[in-house]
């Protein structure tokens, strides 16, 4: 099969679209997490670390309890704790947010590596664990094409839909959302009107922790059903790119995530459709990262970051 043939075959199959959605899911969660943090004025490049820790904590609790929902809850709490550390030093101590987030990525990586063997008895990856269940919609399944895409999807898909709607409403239709957007743009103005700048920033960063953890958990216990130390393999940073491309808007971030997801899905499809030597497959793995660079290089300046993002707010 030639490249052109393979690409068209892929585009014609429902599997490609399903894979696109599935590859986009972690980026949707983490990217919207990034939106929550940055729109209140705190950059959070630690999404990568939070995803890793979230997935790991969920795996640990599923390993001990066998209940994926307990794992999900604890993973979210894990993300919350890590994000809290970032929030605390950024908000209370005017820390350099990029450096602090880098620290958290290392702490997450170290913690996971440190606990793998004591808990699972092996390094690198865990055994297969109980996954968050799939949701089957029988009548939908019978619809041709559409059914093959949406008929049976992980519960994470529905959680993601909920997150997108919830965050859009929160940010653009509620008083809290108005305050969040104001705090990220001009914290001093918000402060003089009695808006609790610190409180709102805590909320934004903590939300980013919960959401990024969900993204990390999807990869581990939604998709594969196993935690691997290498996860999420750069997806936390691609999520940041999706946030930028999506113009710091939850719905925009979703579309950007789908674009990155499509690149991933095409990569997977081409690898299976064409009989490629292993080294060419290794080369194809570059695609999503190259795309990210192109997008970040091409779209910055055309979208508008919250003006106070990354700037500590201090009175006086």
């Amino acid at each position, binding site marked *: 099969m030639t490249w052109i043939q393979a690409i068209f075959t892929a585009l014609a199959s429902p599997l490609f679209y399903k894979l696109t959605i599935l590859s986009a899911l972690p980026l949707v969660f983490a990217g919207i997490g990034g939106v929550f943090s940055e729109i209140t004025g705190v950059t959070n*490049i630690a999404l990568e670390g939070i995803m890793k820790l979230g997935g790991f904590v969920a795996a640990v609790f599923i390993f001990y309890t066998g209940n994926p929902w307990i794992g999900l809850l604890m993973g979210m709490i894990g993300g919350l704790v890590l994000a809290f*550390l970032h929030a605390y*030093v950024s908000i209370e*101590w*005017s*820390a*350099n*947010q*990029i*450096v*602090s987030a*880098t*620290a*958290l*990525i*290392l*702490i*997450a*990586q*170290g*913690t*996971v*590596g*440190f*606990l*793998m*063997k*004591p808990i699972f008895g092996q390094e690198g990856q865990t055994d297969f664990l109980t996954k968050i269940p799939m949701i089957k919609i029988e009548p939908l399944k019978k619809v041709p094409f559409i059914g093959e895409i949406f008929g049976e999807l992980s519960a994470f898909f529905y959680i993601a839909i909920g997150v997108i709607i919830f965050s859009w409403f929160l940010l653009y239709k509620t008083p809290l959302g108005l305050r969040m957007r104001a705090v990220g743009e001009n914290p001093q103005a918000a402060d003089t009107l009695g808006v609790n700048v610190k409180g709102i920033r805590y909320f934004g960063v903590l939300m980013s922790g919960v959401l990024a953890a969900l993204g990390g958990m999807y990869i581990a216990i939604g998709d594969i059903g196993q935690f691997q130390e290498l996860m999420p*393999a*750069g997806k936390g*940073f*691609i999520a*940041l*790119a999706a946030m*930028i491309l999506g113009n710091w808007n939850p719905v925009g971030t979703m579309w950007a995530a789908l674009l990155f997801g499509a690149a991933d899905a095409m990569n997977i499809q081409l690898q299976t459709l064409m009989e490629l*030597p*292993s*080294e*060419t497959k*290794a*080369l194809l*793995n*570059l695609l999503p*990262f*190259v795309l*990210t*660079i192109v997008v*970040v*290089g*091409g779209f*910055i*300046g055309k979208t508008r970051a919250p003006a106070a993002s990354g700037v500590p707010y201090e009175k006086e």
Partner: protein
Amino acid sequence: MASKSEVTNMRSKWMSFLVPALAVLVSLLIGAIIILAIGQNPIKAYGVMLKGAFGSRVAWADNITKMTSLLLTGLAVGFGFRAGVFNIGAEGQMAMGGIFAMIIGLNLGNVPPVIAIPLTILAGMLGGAFWASIAGWLKAQTGAHEVITTIMLNWIAYHLTNYLVSGPFTVGIGIPKSPEIAKSAQLPPLLTAQASTVPSGIIIAIAAAIVIYILLEKTTLGYEAKAVGFNPYAAEYGGISISKNIVLTMAISGALAGLAGALEVMCVHHRIFGAFTSDRGFDGITIALIGQNNPIGIIFSAFLISSLRAGSNSMQTVGVPDDIIVIVQGIIIFFVAADRIIKTWIIKASKLGKNKSSQTIKGGEEA
């Protein structure tokens, strides 16, 4: 006569030593608590670690070998910081340096070492500089944040290495790896300790630190880089081209990381394989921050981290996973980012000390 500002400068120099030193101590202490939490003895674990880092000639050789590339990646990140860029991509630049050095080094069999060695080193530096310049160019042209682009370039370099050692440059069976570079392009060891050797690369790395120090403090290039790092608007106003400086800074930073990769190939493995950079690029961030981005400080912090890394391998033997060092590094960086926490401690402690001493003086007078 010391002017007032010289006194404050001295005080800030003292602070820039005290803050990272305390950050390291506190982080090691938290590390000890974590070791306790998994039921191991931290004193024993740290003891083994010290022994692993300094306990024998072999340990020293291993330590210095690690320090060579760590010093260079630390310099790479530190130089970037001084000029206002956060080069989180030393890992990928080191990989590209190794790849370039390997490709050139393979083909220098008939060339005498006097020419082959500098050529291979140069190739490595060019490789790193080229890779970093991509991120620099994107930042200068479009404002793309270097943290995202350099991370992506890390992944691309990682996959590229895997491609090269499993495809065009593959050799032998087992782990995919490249062939060995020509003998004439390999750097001879400085000393040999039993099976281990102390690579002569360490001399080159320390020389690089001194060169970077001179570059930053004594030259117009350093003046301009620091000006852009402190206040790009003022630098631009003073006729300094920001975009040129960003690309140049990234190139120098990348060249240092590339040199680390080249030396790793020329002194240690003599070839490349998947992930041969083993996170040295990321360690460079910790090292730069502990060394307060001062090239001379970075020599010492590189030695500290190489000792921790070298020693942590031995900790495995007493049941403490070596990842504890990654956690400790994370905590160090965390405290350096939030340096105000530590500064507040220092100020509180010094006030406490002053009160106490004045009280004792009072007591003495009464008696």
